[in-house]
């Protein structure tokens, strides 16, 4: 893809004739710096149809790759006959497990997933053979010609039964206080279900592998984490990592779907086998089978509260279905367990969370990552408690809201501000400057006796924003059913509901989480030009733009370039866990500070300056295997949503008419992009609330298309009003807080609460379907 360049903002006078621009003394406001909303560097290419996505790649002489996948969720493989496929004209290679050059398995956390199935398939859609042919059509015909002799088996599709049989990827309990003997004035016990959601990024899995001629291979691929791909690939290809060059191709959305390998190993094998460039691109149906999904969940919750609505205890039994392979289930279970009660204080806790191993499609990362499922359950429980006690839903949340000094259920204390600086190391001789803590505003420390509670503050803010009124005259299109013209308003009920989400930012549980940035500074036409090199994935969130903003702020330069993301610079970690602004933002800031220090002592006319920095957030600790205790999270972010819905109670149709959101972002680095993240995250939460579910029957996916798997259209989305709060985190670069995931947590329970308010139904399952609203009304 072309090297992304950034539009040059209006030039400031840079020194007189014969003088060279000098280093700025420190960071300073810049017209396109931190806190502003400049145009994205790649926006012009994207609106001109010139941005090269992975599916747009073309190489001379390239072949098309294709995957043969198992139609069965569980089967033995007696034999694979590839001869009929190889006999077709235009077919260049047909490879099976026997052709995998190195290690047979890969995986993000545990290497348990076969590159190609050997002897057995464990989910429907598991890759069995791969083909390279002149055209995609020919490759597809060849796949049909391969004869696989399956011995079909009974799939294990019930996650609870799998757990009972000891088939789980992780079990994580959390214990606090005396949950067994705790007594409460009011007890709410319910079971909740979350369906399997799909990330459904519009850009399909795609990429191209190009043999380098020396036995190595270059991969152009749309992925969330280049270095992790490389680490998993190299042993499977039996190549030294330096023989594989990974280059980012344009990414059409990710949302977790590009965490795991998809086309990478397959196209590399085909390219190495044929000696020719090989392109792979999934169609939509294959995309639904070819990436992991959000874990479906069954959660039995019991909340006990005193007569004032204060939580006494919470017990929960959480089963997440990890499907056939490990993927990131381990981390999803850790999040689900540690965030199982949300941002509320409670003394007695007994949580048991499992990630089950079944023959359902593998599940892994999706925006919200373990937080989404439990958030639906604990927020539904808070509403049920409020109802039982005759309390306002915001009031019960306020009474239980965590504050500074509160203990989360993993034992982590929400402490007073700390001046500790993030850890930064560099590869040049300049000692790093300590990061100054953000300035405390006047009155920040304690005149108020009650410790500051960001959540209580956010609840007060959302209370002040008026609920939209029901218009006197409504267009039929505005009613549930919309263009279907199903009602004139009779049977339509309005409801309002709230949801609060708490999400961990960055990697937790002791993971060595870091990012790397290299900055080169040189003179061009007498002007300083900065080039940023990282491996961080621009998935659409605006990360490239953010990097240029940081460099403009730190170095005061107008001209900033982005080198292509690849593995010739250190790892950036994944664009996931809302971490990239914090982590690669932190690395770019540190590298820019180092470059500035070097520049102070040098004239750029004497040659370019280069600084590379590795940035780490503070270390975390694993969760104790028996009690779940441990300082496992780095940063937590909060979002509060209010949903207003109209429900046609006769037809079971829901129209979300308003979504209002208060989110704490620490620092609005790029207000425009930030709003876009909150809007988009909210939309995916709406999808889970009322429409999105990948339906499986006995392990078989029944709706792998955009015809049958519905994602919100512009007609489904209401206006979204945002109220953005900036409670700076002094440990994070610029005080920022990861922002991409929290709204995906809170919008789902808010919408379901609003539907409950309109209908009086208990609604313990998402997505809510029309039949849930038209049958089984409560007595």
């Amino acid at each position, binding site marked *: 893809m072309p090297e992304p360049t950034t539009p040059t903002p209006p030039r400031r006078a840079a020194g007189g004739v014969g003088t060279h621009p000098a280093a700025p003394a420190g960071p300073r406001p810049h017209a396109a710096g931190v806190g502003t909303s400049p145009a994205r560097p790649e926006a012009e290419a994207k609106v001109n149809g010139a941005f090269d996505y992975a599916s747009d790649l073309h190489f001379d002489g390239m072949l098309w790759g294709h995957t043969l996948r198992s139609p069965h969720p569980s089967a033995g493989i007696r034999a694979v006959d590839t001869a009929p496929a190889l006999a077709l004209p235009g077919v260049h290679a047909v490879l099976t497990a026997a052709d995998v050059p190195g290690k047979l398995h890969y995986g993000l956390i545990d290497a348990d997933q076969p590159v190609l199935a050997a002897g057995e398939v464990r989910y429907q859609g598991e890759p069995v053979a791969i083909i390279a042919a002149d055209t995609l059509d020919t490759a597809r015909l060849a796949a049909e010609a391969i004869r696989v002799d399956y011995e079909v088996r009974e799939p294990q599709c019930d996650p609870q039964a799998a757990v009972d049989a000891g088939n789980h990827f992780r079990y994580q309990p959390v214990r606090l206080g005396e949950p067994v003997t705790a007594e409460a004035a009011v007890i709410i016990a319910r079971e909740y279900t979350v369906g399997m959601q799909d990330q459904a990024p519009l850009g399909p899995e795609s990429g191209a592998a190009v043999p380098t001629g020396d036995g190595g291979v270059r991969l152009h691929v749309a992925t969330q984490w280049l270095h992790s791909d490389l680490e998993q690939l190299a042993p499977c290809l039996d190549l030294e990592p330096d023989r594989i060059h990974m280059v980012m191709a344009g990414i059409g959305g990710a949302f977790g779907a590009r965490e795991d390998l998809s086309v990478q190993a397959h196209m590399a094998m085909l390219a190495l086998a044929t000696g020719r460039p090989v392109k792979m691109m999934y169609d939509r149906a294959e995309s639904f089978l070819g990436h992991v999904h959000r874990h479906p969940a069954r959660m039995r919750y019991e909340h006990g509260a005193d007569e004032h609505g204060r939580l006494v205890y919470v017990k929960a039994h959480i089963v997440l279905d990890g499907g056939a392979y490990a993927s990131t289930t381990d981390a999803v279970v850790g999040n689900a367990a540690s965030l199982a009660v949300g941002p509320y204080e409670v003394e007695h806790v007994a949580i048991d969370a499992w990630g089950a191993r079944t023959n359902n499609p593998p599940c892994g990362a999706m925006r919200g990552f373990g937080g989404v499922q439990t958030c639906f359950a604990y927020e539904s429980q808070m509403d049920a408690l409020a109802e039982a006690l005759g309390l306002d839903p915001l009031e019960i949340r306020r009474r239980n809201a965590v504050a500074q000094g509160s203990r989360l259920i993993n034992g982590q*204390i929400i402490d007073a501000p700390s001046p500790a600086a993030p850890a930064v190391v560099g590869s040049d001789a300049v000692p790093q400057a300590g990061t100054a803590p953000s300035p405390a505003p006047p009155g*920040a420390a304690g005149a108020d006796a009650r410790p500051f509670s960001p959540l209580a503050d956010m609840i007060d803010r959302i209370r002040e924003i008026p609920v939209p009124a029901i218009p006197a005259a409504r267009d039929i299109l505005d009613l549930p059913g919309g263009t279907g013209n199903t009602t004139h308003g009779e049977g339509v009920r309005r409801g309002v509901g709230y949801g609060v989400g708490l999400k961990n930012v960055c990697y937790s549980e002791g993971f060595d989480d870091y990012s790397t940035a290299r900055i080169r500074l040189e003179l061009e036409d007498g002007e300083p030009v900065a080039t940023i090199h990282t491996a961080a994935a621009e998935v659409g969130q605006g990360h490239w733009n953010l990097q240029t903003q940081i460099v403009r702020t730190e170095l005061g330069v107008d001209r900033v370039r982005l080198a292509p993301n690849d593995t010739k610079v250190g790892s950036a970690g994944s664009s996931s866990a809302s971490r990239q602004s914090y982590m690669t933002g932190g690395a770019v800031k540190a590298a820019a500070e180092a470059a500035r220090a070097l520049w102070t002592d040098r004239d750029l006319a004497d040659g370019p300056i280069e600084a590379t920095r590795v940035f780490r957030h503070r270390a975390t600790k694993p969760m104790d295997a028996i009690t779940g205790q441990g300082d496992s999270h780095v940063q937590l972010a909060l979002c509060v949503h209010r949903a207003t819905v109209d429900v046609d109670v006769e037809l079971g149709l829901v129209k979300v008419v308003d979504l209002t959101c208060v989110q704490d972002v620490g620092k609005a680095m790029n207000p*425009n992009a930030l709003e876009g993240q909150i809007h988009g995250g909210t939309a995916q939460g709406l999808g889970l609330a009322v429409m999105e579910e990948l339906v499986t029957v006995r392990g078989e996916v029944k709706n792998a298309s955009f*015809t049958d798997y519905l994602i919100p259209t512009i007609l489904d989305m209401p206006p979204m009003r945002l109220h953005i709060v900036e409670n700076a985190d002094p440990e994070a670069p610029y005080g920022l807080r990861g922002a991409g995931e929290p709204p995906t947590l809170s919008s789902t329970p808010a919408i379901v609460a609003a539907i409950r308010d309109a209908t009086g139904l208990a609604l313990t399952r998402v997505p809510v379907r029309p039949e849930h609203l038209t049958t089984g009304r409560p007595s």
Partner: protein
Amino acid sequence: MSEGMRVRMRVDGAEIAADVDRPGESLLTSLRDRLGLTGSKNACEQGECGSCTVLLDGLPVCACLVATAQCEGREVKTVVGAVPRPVRDAFVACGAVQCGFCTPGLLVSVADLLDREPDPDDALIREALAGNLCRCTGYEKIIEAVHVAAEAMSDGVPRVPARSHLHHNQWINVTTFPRGDAETGEDTP
């Protein structure tokens, strides 16, 4: 394989001949894979997502649902040739582009809408864009961009959109949320 056929059409102003060897080949496949014109995107090939929207003799169609063989002598306009500059500028300025995969199709649909209706209200915009899926933006900024584009096209003055939402851009309190032992990671480059 059936016998090849040559289809002549005008694409974004250029006379182009496509040699199609299957009668059913879609216009989208011909544009992307045969002619190397990858501006129009393929996200479903089922007429569901609108990423492949082009103007065929001035009317918006899903290029994945049109057979190239039907396009003999006709005029095709993609994102490259169908979209007035102010519409593209408005999408960039408003943040209506995130990953951008939906953008080429959306821009063509918006160009068609503004051609028919120079000052559409929200309801009209939603109706006109209901066939274009976007997974990233939640559509809010797309609606804003259409309004900004409509205004700019009415008087020729480009605009920077006003921030449309409530903001609380001040430091309310300095909070670490949460913080454990201030233990830093081990540093290795």
